[in-house]
């Protein structure tokens, strides 16, 4: 009777490799990504979506989502929300404009101070949540309004307008700014253009240059942040703390996890990601506007949820969030390419997003057997 060896402890239960693979939170994201690409390859292949420029377009948009999704993902796994991400993007961009253009400080100082201010606001968000015990939903909703208000008030008061330009000129020659606004591999892309692999501009001052002339730092940042978040979450003790804090904060505290510190650190990281987003944006476009980043907090959350994370915390993956961001970016831009009527576009977007999340949840329930 002893030979049948029914495992007495479920933690050491043997599971098949397939089942293990299916249990990964990013599975839904992978299935979704494959489905979305198949869909657009079928319906929008000859629309320019898969030409160099088209690929760059949806890659950049997806990378934007990825940057804020990584922060939102880790925070959500730690059991909290940040609804102030969108306002933080507008605020951070405006700070750069105020310090770098209006006050004409060197751009690298403006960038570092902006990082300091924004990460400090993130810490304040976290501190208030921890100290008051209020849901982060409410606290960060308050900051959504507070930061947006300042983003409109400050330039209005100083400059009597709500868009401040001239950032590109102010950043010229700076050593830190290209890390956000620059492009890499430009020589390689020029070469691709020269040998005819990439299309080149047919007229104007950029004649002969390839239509896609390099990888924007925005994409590099997205990849770095995804890699950083993934390693942090899966390979470090701190990563385990994040899961534990979101899963059951009380149990985590009892086993010695510094839950408060973990959560505040994640609020700061979310703010950091939002600031990176803002910096890449103002460096590329050269102006900061009071309306930048509207609704981006929801886009970050949507990407994370498509990527398989639970809204209740304790479960999720950064790779999944990155895939969610990719799906969201590809769907959003792809629907344009597929020629969907613009007022119906958001209907499709909503349906596809809902479908992705339902599929995801269904797969997870089926595999893990949870109810």
């Amino acid at each position, binding site marked *: 009777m002893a030979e049948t060896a029914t495992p007495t402890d479920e933690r050491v239960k043997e599971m098949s490799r397939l089942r293990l693979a299916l249990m990964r939170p990013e599975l839904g994201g992978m299935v979704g990504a494959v489905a979305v690409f198949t869909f657009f390859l079928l319906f929008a292949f*000859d629309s320019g979506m898969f*030409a160099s420029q*088209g690929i760059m377009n949806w890659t*950049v948009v997806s990378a934007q989502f990825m940057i804020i999704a990584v922060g939102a993902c880790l925070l959500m796994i730690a059991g909290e929300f940040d609804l102030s991400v969108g306002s933080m993007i507008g605020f951070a961009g405006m700070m750069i404009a105020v310090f770098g253009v209006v006050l004409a400080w060197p751009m690298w100082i403006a960038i570092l101070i902006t990082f300091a201010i924004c990460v400090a606001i993130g810490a304040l968000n976290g501190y208030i949540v921890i100290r008051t015990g209020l849901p982060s939903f409410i606290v960060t909703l308050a900051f959504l309004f507070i930061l947006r208000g300042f983003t409109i008030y400050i330039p209005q008061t100083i400059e009597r307008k709500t868009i401040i330009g001239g*950032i590109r000129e102010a950043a010229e020659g700076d050593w830190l700014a290209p890390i956000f606004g620059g492009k890499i591999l430009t020589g390689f892309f020029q070469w691709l253009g020269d040998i005819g692999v990439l299309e080149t501009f047919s007229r104007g001052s950029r004649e002969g240059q390839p239509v896609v002339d390099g990888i924007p730092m925005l994409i590099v940042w997205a990849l770095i942040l995804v890699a950083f978040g993934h390693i942090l979450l899966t390979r470090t003790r701190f990563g385990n703390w994040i899961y534990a804090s979101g899963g059951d904060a009380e149990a985590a505290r009892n086993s010695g996890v510094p839950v408060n510190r973990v959560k505040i650190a994640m609020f700061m990281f979310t703010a950091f990601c939002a600031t990176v987003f803002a910096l890449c944006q103002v460096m590329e476009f050269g102006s900061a506007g009071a*309306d930048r980043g509207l609704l981006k907090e929801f886009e970050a959350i949507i990407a994370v949820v498509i990527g398989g994370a639970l809204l209740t915390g304790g479960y999720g993956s950064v790779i999944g969030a990155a895939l969610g961001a990719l799906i969201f970016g590809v769907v959003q*831009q792809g629907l*344009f390419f597929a020629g969907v009527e613009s007022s119906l576009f*958001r209907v499709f977007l909503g349906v596809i997003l809902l479908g992705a999340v339902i599929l995801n949840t269904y797969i997870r329930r089926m595999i893990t057997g949870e109810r």
Partner: protein
Amino acid sequence: MKKLMTSLAVGAAIISAPVAATAGAHEELNYVLVSHAPDSDTWWNTIKNGIALAGEQVGVNVEYRNPPTGDIADMARIIEQAAASSPDGIITTLADFDVLSGPISAAVDQGIDVIIMNTGTPEQAREVGALMYVGQPEYDAGFAAGLRAKGEGVTKFLCVNHAIQQPTVGERCRGYADGLGIDLGDAMMDSGTDPAEIKNKVMAYLSANEDVDGILTLGPVSADPTIAALDEMGLAGDIHFGTFDLGEEIVKAIKGGTIKWGIDQQPFLQAYLPVVILANWDRYGVLPGNNINSGPGFVTAAGLEKVEAFAGEYR
């Protein structure tokens, strides 16, 4: 890597094939209009209807796109996306020159014809390499209003400016003064946007300057309280009163005789004309030699019927 490059090359070849085909005359033409307006801005419905009507009449495909929240950075991505889908032409606004000039110039350099509409200036349109600008240059509109007001006997005026932070709107006052041939001086009032404040400021100004015989307001925000101020002072109809833009109160006041005329920038034309112009440019290579002023269109009591009939649709 080689495999990737080959597949990219194959992809590019497949994609460029239908584009090359459309270069011939009488093929299907595709135009995209990209606006800066958020979904909530209903004013742009006229624009949507305008391009749809033009597309139908001329026989081309038109599409309307906008950033849902009005985020100009998102708009730049939409322009890049539109360029990547290789349409025959792009019609767009220059809501923020810093942000949009890059993507628009890139589209032009790629061989796509661009027309700037609504927001922007003829100079900026030239700078990004657009074919032309279709809109209402603020100074010119003000100047035309001034000329007309001069003919109607205005000698001293007040310009009620509710958006002093927007330099382009102030141009309307400057143009009006120049059209009248009067120095602007302190005739431009920074009224703020609070209706009660505007009303009291206008009443105070008119009491202090009894020789004022003309008023210009720059939109419904300043026009509506000014109407109330004139009513209260018993000057409605006595003072020559013109305004920019139309609105419910303004239309009522034009009907009632308080307002002489409203200046319509005629958004319909800003949408309709670029489509027609691009289509004829692509088909026959003909292009008007100048920028087009879609306004000022003067709406008087006589022309109200059509305005009311098509309000929100084409007007």
